[in-house]
C-alpha cells in the first residue's frame, strides 16, 4: 500500500469527520445532533489556539491539552497536520488539484517553486503571537523592576554585552548582540518611562487567520445555512448570520486562489503552518533525497504540495509530508528518512531579521493603538450584548478565537458574529441580536457556554444562570437590561393596547409590569344623541362596526367620578353598547358629553429582575426598531456597567 494512498484516506477521514462535526452541532440528543459528539476536537488539536491562549491567559484550558499531542507528533514527524489532518488544507489540496489538471509538467513544477512570499506566514505568526503576548511582556518587565536583584542583573548583563559588542565580538555575532541590546534596552527604557500594564494589553487575534477557526466559521456560518435552506434538517427555520458575506467571501477567495497557486493559503498565509514549520526543525524523520545526483526531471516537484523544492536543497519548514514526491519519483530517490536529504536542507524558516523585528514591534504596538478607541473601557458599546457566561470584555477578547461554535449551536440563532461594533478586536466575536432568530435567549439553555473551546464563554450551570441554590445571593446572570422606548411603544405613544412584552417575559416574577392608564381616543369626546340603559347613539366620529368591541374601550361620563367607566361591548357606526352589567340607570339627555377611552397597559421594567434575555424585544410587534430593546447596561459580567447597587 502506498503511503500516498494512506494520506488520501486520512485526509478524507478527517475532512468527513470535520463536516460531520459541523452537521451535528445542532442542540439536541438525537444521533445526528450534538449529544456528546466532541465537535470542538479540531480546535482543541490546534496548537495555535493553545499557544495563543497560554500567552494571553497564562493557562492551558482543559481540552486544549490535545494540542500537546499535535505538537509532540510535529516535533517528531514534521508538518504532518497540514496534509494529513487539516480540513482546510484538504479543501485547498482538492481545489489545487483541479487547478493543476491539464497543465504541463513544467508548468506544474513552476507553480510549485519556492516563493519568497512563503515567509509572510512567519511574520504573521510573530505579529499575532506578539499581540497576544503583550501583557505578558509588560508583566515581565514590571517583575524585573519590582525585584531589585533582577534589575541589577539586567544592568550588569547589559554592560557586559555592550563591552563585548564594542571590543570582543566581531561580524555577525556583534551585529546580533547589538540588535539584541537595542531591543532589550529599548524595552527596558520603555518600561522605565511607562507603567506598562496601562499601555499594553493582550489581544487574541489568532482566530482571524488560524485555519481551523476559519474553516469552522466558514462552514458553520456560511455553507451549512445555504445548504440547509432547502431541507431545513439542521434548523427548522432559516439560519441568519450577520456579515456572513465577508466570512464567505474570504473562504471562497482562499479556495479560488488555489487555482492560481496550489495551497496558496497554506504556503503564504497560514500562521498555524508557520508554527508547525518552526516546531519541525528537529524532526526525527524528514523527506529528502537518498542520493544527491538525479536527472532533475522535476517529477517530484510537479505535485509538491508545500513548495519545498525537494529536487535540490529542500526547504524543510515548508514540507507538509504529502509524500507525493516519494510516489512520483521514477527512480525511487525520495524517501522519508532519519538522515538529512542528500542534496542538503534548509531547516529554518526564511525570515529576515528586519522582518522579524518589524512584525514583533507591530504586534506590540497594535494592541494599545487599537485600544485607544476605548471599546474595552469607557467607550464600551452598549449594543454589544455577550452570551451568558461570557467573561468581562478584556478577558473575553483574550480568549475568543472567533470559531463561531457558539453561533452555530445557539438554538434560537441570536448569537451573531460582530462586525466592528465591539471594536476591531471584536470582529466575528459573538454578540446577541434579538431581532434575528426565533426567540430571545432561552431561559433554560446553556448550550453556548458548553461548546466554547477556550472558555471565553465559561461553562455555566442552570443554577448559576437562574441564580438559584448556591448562586441565590449572587442572583441570575444578566445579559443587560431591557428599556422601553416610550416614543415607539404602542400603549405609550400610539394609544394602542398591547402587552406582548409583559406576557412573554419568561422570568417569574415578571420583570415587566404594567400600569393601567386610560386615554381618551382621538376625537373621543362625543355628544349623546339618544340613549337607553345599555346603548348610546352618538354624534361626532363614527367607528367601524365592532372596532370598539375588543374589551379595551370604555365610556366615561364627564359627570361621573374618575373611577367609573363602562366597558363598551359592541358598536355599530355611531352606536355604542355597554356591558349590560353596568347599564345607564337614567337616560342621558341629548347633548351630554361622554368620553370614549381606551385602556392602555403601559409596560415598565423592573431592573432588579430583568435578565436581558431579549424575548420581549423579539416579540415586540413594532418590528423595525423595536419599542423595547435590550442593551448591555447592568450586565452581570461587568460590575462597572451596573446601573444599580
Amino acid at each position, binding site marked *: 500500500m502506498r503511503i500516498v494512498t494512506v494520506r488520501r484516506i486520512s485526509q478524507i477521514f478527517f475532512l468527513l469527520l470535520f463536516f460531520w462535526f459541523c452537521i451535528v452541532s445542532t442542540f439536541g440528543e438525537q444521533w445526528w445532533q450534538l449529544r*456528546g459528539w466532541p465537535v470542538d476536537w479540531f480546535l482543541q488539536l490546534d496548537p495555535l489556539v493553545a499557544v495563543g491562549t497560554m500567552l494571553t491567559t497564562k493557562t492551558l484550558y482543559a481540552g486544549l491539552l490535545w494540542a500537546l499531542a499535535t505538537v509532540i507528533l510535529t516535533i517528531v514527524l514534521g508538518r504532518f497536520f497540514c496534509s494529513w489532518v487539516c480540513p482546510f488544507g484538504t479543501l485547498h489540496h482538492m481545489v489545487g488539484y483541479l487547478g493543476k489538471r491539464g497543465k504541463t509538467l513544467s508548468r506544474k513544477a513552476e507553480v510549485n517553486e519556492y516563493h519568497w512570499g512563503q515567509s509572510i506566514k512567519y511574520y504573521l505568526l510573530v505579529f499575532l503571537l506578539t499581540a497576544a503576548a503583550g501583557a505578558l511582556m509588560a508583566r515581565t518587565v514590571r517583575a524585573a523592576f519590582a525585584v531589585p536583584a533582577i534589575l541589577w542583573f539586567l544592568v550588569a548583563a547589559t554592560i557586559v554585552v555592550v563591552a563585548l559588542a564594542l571590543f570582543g565580538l566581531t561580524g555577525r555575532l556583534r551585529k546580533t548582540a547589538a540588535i539584541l541590546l537595542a531591543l532589550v534596552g529599548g524595552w527596558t527604557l520603555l518600561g522605565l518611562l511607562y507603567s506598562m500594564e496601562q499601555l499594553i494589553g493582550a489581544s487574541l487575534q489568532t482566530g482571524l487567520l488560524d485555519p481551523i477557526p476559519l474553516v469552522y466559521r466558514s462552514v458553520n456560518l456560511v455553507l451549512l445555512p445555504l445548504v440547509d435552506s432547502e431541507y431545513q434538517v439542521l434548523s427548522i427555520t432559516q439560519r441568519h448570520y450577520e456579515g456572513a458575506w465577508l466570512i464567505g467571501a474570504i473562504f471562497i477567495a482562499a479556495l479560488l486562489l488555489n487555482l492560481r497557486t496550489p495551497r496558496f493559503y497554506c504556503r503564504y498565509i497560514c500562521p498555524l503552518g508557520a508554527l508547525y514549520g518552526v516546531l519541525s526543525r528537529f524532526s526525527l524523520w524528514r523527506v529528502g533525497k537518498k542520493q544527491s545526483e538525479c536527472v532533475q526531471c522535476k517529477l517530484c516537484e510537479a505535485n509538491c504540495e508545500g513548495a519545498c523544492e525537494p529536487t535540490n536543497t529542500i526547504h524543510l519548514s515548508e514540507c507538509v509530508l504529502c509524500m507525493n514526491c516519494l510516489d512520483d519519483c521514477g527512480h525511487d530517490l525520495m524517501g522519508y528518512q532519519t538522515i538529512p536529504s542528500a542534496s542538503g536542507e534548509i531547516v529554518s524558516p526564511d525570515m529576515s531579521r528586519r522582518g522579524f523585528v518589524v512584525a514583533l514591534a507591530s504586534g506590540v504596538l497594535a494592541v494599545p493603538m487599537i485600544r485607544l478607541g476605548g471599546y474595552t473601557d469607557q467607550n464600551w458599546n452598549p449594543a454589544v450584548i455577550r452570551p451568558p457566561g461570557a467573561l468581562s470584555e478584556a478577558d473575553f477578547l483574550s480568549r475568543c478565537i472567533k470559531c463561531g461554535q457558539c453561533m452555530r449551536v445557539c438554538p434560537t440563532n441570536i448569537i451573531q458574529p460582530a462586525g466592528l461594533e465591539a471594536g476591531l478586536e471584536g470582529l466575528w466575536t459573538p454578540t446577541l441580536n434579538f431581532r434575528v432568530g426565533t426567540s430571545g435567549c432561552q431561559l433554560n439553555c446553556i448550550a453556548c457556554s458548553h461548546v466554547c473551546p477556550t472558555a471565553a464563554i465559561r461553562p455555566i450551570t442552570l443554577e448559576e444562570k437562574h441564580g438559584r441554590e448556591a448562586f441565590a445571593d449572587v442572583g441570575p446572570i444578566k445579559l443587560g437590561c431591557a428599556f422601553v422606548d416610550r416614543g415607539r411603544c404602542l400603549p405609550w405613544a400610539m394609544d394602542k393596547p398591547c402587552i406582548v412584552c409583559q406576557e412573554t417575559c419568561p422570568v417569574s416574577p415578571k420583570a415587566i409590569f404594567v400600569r393601567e392608564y386610560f386615554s381618551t381616543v382621538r376625537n373621543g369626546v362625543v355628544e349623546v344623541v339618544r340613549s337607553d340603559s345599555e346603548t348610546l347613539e352618538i354624534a361626532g366620529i363614527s367607528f367601524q362596526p365592532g372596532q370598539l368591541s375588543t374589551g379595551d374601550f370604555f365610556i366615561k361620563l364627564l359627570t361621573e367620578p374618575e373611577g367609573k367607566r363602562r366597558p363598551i361591548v359592541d358598536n355599530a357606526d355611531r352606536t355604542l353598547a355597554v356591558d349590560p352589567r353596568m347599564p345607564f340607570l337614567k337616560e342621558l339627555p341629548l347633548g351630554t358629553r361622554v368620553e370614549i377611552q381606551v385602556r392602555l397597559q403601559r409596560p415598565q421594567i423592573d431592573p432588579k429582575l430583568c435578565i436581558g434575555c431579549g424575548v420581549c424585544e423579539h416579540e415586540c410587534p413594532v418590528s423595525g426598531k423595536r419599542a423595547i430593546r435590550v442593551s448591555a447596561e447592568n450586565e452581570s459580567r461587568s460590575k462597572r456597567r451596573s446601573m444599580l447597587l
Partner: protein
Amino acid sequence: MFKSVVKWILILKEYRRLQAEPMANRSRKMETLAGIAILATLVVIAAGILVKQSRYDSKLFTASLSPSDSSIASTQKSAKPSELQTLVPDDLIPLTPLETFGPENLSDKIDGKAELYLSAGFRSLKSQRFKKSEQADSWLEILLFDMGSTRNAFAVFSTQRRADAEPVQLTLHAYRTGNALFFVHGQDYVEIIAASGDLTDEMLAIGKNFVNRNPVSSEKLSEQALFPRENLNPGSISLLASDAFGFSRMNNVFTAKYTIDGQEMRAFLSLRHSDKDAQELAEAYHRFLLENGGSDLDPGTNLPGIKLVEIFDLYELIFSHGKALGGVHEAESKDTALKLGLALYQELQKVDQKQ
C-alpha cells in the same frame, strides 16, 4: 480498546521481521506497515469518537423547567421533604421543588384559568412534580389549591368537571379521568395530573394519604341534597361562585343537569341570607331576563311567585321559596321547565316540613 492493542502488537511483530529483510523490499514493506499503523490509528480515533458521543450530560439538553437531577438529589438528602412529598409513596421522588403561588401570581402557573379560581376565593396553591425513581418519563404533578372553604373548593371542582369523569371512592366530591384525579377535601381542591397513564395507583394512594392526614369536618353543601333525584344527570351538580348565567348578582348558585323527555336543562338553586333577599334576587333576575330580550309567559301554575320567561327560544323558570332562590335554566319546552321547576319546589317544601 483491546482490538487496537492487538493490532499494535501485530504491527510491532511485523516490524521486527522486516528488520531482517533486504533493503529494497524493506522500504516497501515499511511503507505498508506505516500505512497500516496509521489506518489503525484512524480506526481508534473513530471508535473513540463514537464512544464519546454516547457519554454526555443529559441535564444540559433537557429543556428542563427544573434544576438538575443531581442537585435535587442533594437537596433531597439535606433539606426537609416538602409538605406534598410526605404524601407520595416511596417509589416517587421529587422532580421539581415545591412551588407556592398566591392570588397575585397564580396566573404565572395556570395563566387564564386563574380568573376562575380568583373569583371563587382562591387563597394559595402549592404544587410539585414527582417522578418514579427509575423512569424519568413517568411523572405526575400535585396541585393543592386552598380555596378557603368547601363551598369555594366545590365551585372550582364542579365547574371544571371533565366529560369523561369516572366517579371514585375517595371523598364526597371526587372523580378521575384517564390520567388524573380530582377531588375536594375540606377547603382544598386537589388535582393530581400524571404525564402517563400508568400512575393511577400512585395517584389514588396520594389522594388517600391526603384525606387520612387531614381530617376535616366538611362543610355540608346542603343545597346539593335539595335537588330532586329523578332525571338528574349523575355528577352534574355544580356550584357557580359568581356571575351565574351572565347576571352579576347571581352568585353562590348550585346547578344540576337534568334530562327529561330527551331534553337537557338545568335546575338551579341558591340559598340566600333571608327570605327577603331571595325574593329580591328572584325579582332582579326576572327583570334582568326581561331587559335582555325575554318575555313573560303564563307559568301555567297557581303557585305563588313562579315566573316563566321565554328568552331566545328557551325557557327560564324563576321562583323564591323561603331563603331559597330556585328555578330552571334553558329548558327547551314550557312543560318540561314547569315539571322540573315544580319538582324542585316540592323538594324545598319537604325541607320546610321537616323543620
